[in-house]
Each structure stands twice: as C-alpha cells, then as structure tokens.
C-alpha cells in the first residue's frame, strides 16, 4: 500500500513511527494505520504531499502529542501509580487540573518526607529527635538540649509516619486520577 505514497509522505510516516518507539507495537501500529489512512484520503482528494503533511506539524511534534495522549489513556486504564505519575508530569503544563494535582502531590510528599526523615533520625537518636514544644518554639526535628523542651510524640512518630505514607500514597493516586481525568 505504501509504494503508492509519495516519498515525502513515506518519510513522514516512518519518522512518526520511529518517534513512537516506546509504545507497545499494537498501539503504535494502530496510530500509524490511522495516520496512513488519513494521508491517503487527503492525497486522493487532490492534496499535494506537503499539503497533506503540514497540518500535522513536525513528525516529532505529532508523535509527542500522540504519545502524551496514549500515556494518559494507558495510565487511566491501568491506574498503575508509575504510569499515573508519568502521565501527570507530561501533562503538567497543558492542563490546569494536572498542574494543581501536581503541586498538591508535591506538597504532600515534602511533608511526608520530612516526617519520615525525622522518624528515621528518631530511631538513631531517640533523646534528641521528635516534635518539640517549648515556651518559645514548636518544631519537628533535632534539638541540642532535650531538657529545654517537651517532646510530644515519643515513639508514636513511627506509626504516624507509616500511616502518613499510606495516606500520602492514596491521596496521590486520587489526585493524579482527578488531574488526568479532568485533563482528558
């Protein structure tokens, strides 16, 4: 079928196909088949090779839009965390909901990260690490003079850190799904 196509069109299709290398072969074949079918229709209705190709943009650009849309589809279907996050990052700048979800997820993990680091430090130096309250200060972390403040959490910091991590994980999935569904 492709022998009938002008060389420019064949090159274009080949480049798009190459740029979609990371996708599963069946998905890639389907995308290329659709592109192929569209270009043949255009050529048959009298468009020149360049008129048919130009509205798709550069092969890399077009492949990248296709790829992003596929990542989104894959992530929404599989709901695997790695795919959700990958798709969210790719769509961060193209949708407001994805940007909001991304920022919230980032903040949640910064807070969870701090809590976990402190919990690990607590295991190493139980006397100096914790959630401290003194007449002048309230903070989480390391203190030089344990006698100058009261530690509020004690060893409760371990279960709290574990629960916070689980909670952050669930919240991340919810936010990523919301961000991506609104983006699509």
């Amino acid at each position, binding site marked *: 079928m492709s022998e009938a196509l002008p060389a420019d069109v064949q090159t274009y299709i080949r480049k798009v196909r190459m740029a979609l290398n990371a996708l599963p072969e069946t998905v890639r074949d*389907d995308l290329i088949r659709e*592109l192929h*079918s569209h270009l043949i229709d255009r050529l048959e209705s009298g468009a020149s090779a360049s008129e048919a190709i130009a509205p*798709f943009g550069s092969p890399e650009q*077009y492949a990248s839009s296709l790829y992003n*849309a*596929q990542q*989104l*589809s894959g992530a929404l279907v599989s709901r695997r965390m790695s795919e959700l996050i990958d798709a969210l990052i790719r769509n961060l700048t193209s949708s407001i909901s994805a940007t909001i979800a991304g920022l919230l997820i980032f903040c949640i993990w910064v807070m969870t990260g701090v809590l976990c680091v402190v919990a690990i430090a607590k295991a190493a130096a139980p006397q100096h690490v914790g959630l401290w309250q003194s007449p002048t200060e309230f903070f989480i972390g390391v203190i030089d003079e344990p006698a100058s403040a009261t530690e509020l959490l004690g060893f409760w910091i371990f279960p709290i850190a574990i629960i916070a991590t689980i909670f952050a994980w669930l919240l991340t999935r919810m936010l990523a799904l919301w961000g991506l569904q609104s983006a*699509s």
Partner: protein
Amino acid sequence: MTVEPDKRSDNRKAQLKKGVVDMALLALLQKRPRYGLELLEDLNGEGGLDVAEGTIYPLLHRLEAAGDVEARWQTETENRRPRKYYALTESGREQLAGMVRNWIETRDRIDNLIRKARDDE
C-alpha cells in the same frame, strides 16, 4: 511591548474556539460514527474552528481514554479501505448534554449582559 490589534483579536478568537472543540466534536458524533478527516472537515467547515490534524487525533484518543467515544476500524461497502470510526458512548452523550447546557446558559447570559449594557448607555 504592544501586540497589534489584529493579532490580539485573532488570539482572542483562537482562545474562544479552543474551549468549544470538544463539545463540537462530540456533537458531530450524535447521529452516527465518523472518522477523523470527516470530523475535521465539519469542525473547520461548518464550525469554522481551525482545528489542525495534529490536534484532532490526540484529542480523539483522549476522549477515547476518558470513555466518551469508542473507536472501531470499519470498511465502507463502496470503499475497500478501512477507516477508524469514532462513536459516542453513553458517557459521552451525558458529557455532551452537560457541555451543551453550560454553553447555552453561558451564551444566553453573556448575550443578555451585552444587550443590557448597550441599552443602558
């Protein structure tokens, strides 16, 4: 730095159109399934929306991922070549109904606002 008035007007028009492409596309699928090029010609011809090829296919795939449309390769009897047809799903129909409601409400309110502001002068 100032932008030429013509360019600003074009930008505004492009922004306005961008928001209604999804709705127009779903609306075109109400009666029967259609393929990409067919949709593109109607969106740009009748709809005057300036949608490019590079935009419509990724958009169709996103709508498919969201469950608003479903795609199937189909061969028309008079045409030996198969084409990928997109059809509206039940969820797509609901989405479209919501979009159209919002569109009509917004359009009516803005029309009123413009009319009222003009009559008040």
